[in-house]
């Protein structure tokens, strides 16, 4: 077996194979970029509240406890569909606002972030936008 299995060939296959599969992946990525405008609700982004809400989502590290479209931490509920689950943006805002600063004895509780009304509007706009993204019918039910 030793004579017929050369390091040079193995190395060439590594470089060639890697380049090859990288190209296939880039082609799939190119197609992805062409298709997602029909699914990602990008026209909603003309509303500046969404970008502001996304930034609040990030700078308060919400993903450190929650998932968004299933990605993040598994300590707190999925938020990709929270506007649907709670029924309205107002309900989401009221929930965030009502969190006790000292938590709930013995239980997990969301911190009180002290958001302004404007912040809350932005966050709700962002979560509403995410809920409208076409995520291939995920999650399986409204509980997330």
């Amino acid at each position: 077996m030793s004579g017929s299995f050369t390091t040079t060939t193995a190395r060439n296959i590594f470089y060639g194979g890697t380049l090859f599969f990288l190209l296939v992946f880039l082609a799939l990525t190119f197609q992805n970029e062409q298709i997602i405008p029909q699914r990602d609700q990008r026209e909603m982004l003309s509303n500046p509240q969404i970008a502001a809400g996304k930034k609040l989502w990030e700078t308060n590290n919400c993903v450190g406890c929650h998932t968004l479209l299933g990605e993040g931490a598994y300590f707190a509920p999925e938020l990709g569909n929270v506007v649907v689950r709670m029924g309205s943006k107002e309900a989401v805002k009221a929930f965030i606002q009502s969190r006790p600063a000292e938590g709930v004895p013995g239980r997990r509780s969301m911190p009180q972030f002290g958001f302004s009304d404007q912040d809350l509007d932005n966050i709700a706009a962002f979560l509403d936008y995410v809920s409208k993204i076409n995520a291939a019918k995920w999650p399986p039910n409204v509980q997330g």
Partner: protein
Amino acid sequence: MSSNTASIAVQNPAARPGFSLLDRYHPPGDLAIWVFILAELLAFGVFFAVYAVARMKNVELFNAMQPNLDRSAGAINTVLLLAASWCVARAVAAIEHGRRAASARWLVAGIGCGAGFLVVKLFEYAAKFAAGINLATNDFYMFYLSLTFFHFMHVILGLVILVAVWLKTRAGAYSAADHHGMETGAAYWHMVDLVWIVLFPLVYVMR
């Protein structure tokens, strides 16, 4: 290598000196390419299986869509790939007899047929893209485009390998005694051909 296998190898007139039985009867070409070929065949095999499952779940759609494919283009391409494989096999046979120039000519013929496949396929794709078909059109077209495109890329890779082998042949790198590299390239090309022989009937013809 143990002395035992060495003595058997020497007794066998076909055995090249210094090689054990295992070496003599391993598949032609470098073993490393065979690992890669098996991995590729596995990927295609799983892809075909997933196609079969998806078709089973939605036979009406697949049957309604299949006639839209260009079967004559597919048939021409089948002939082209088979011809290319034959040429490549002739090239290996020629180099085994030390006929370097003939071997190079057979390789050019093989590369020509392979390039012909790409041209026919591009026309086929152009017609589909002009009709606004992409990976999101429906399940059938998703599989049609995915499978044929993945194979198309393999034809390109196979051709790149054949061109490299051809250049080396012209440079005199292979001989009757040593054409290990050409066998390695040829093995990969035959895999590309083999996959098409399964893919074409599966996607274009079978109902």
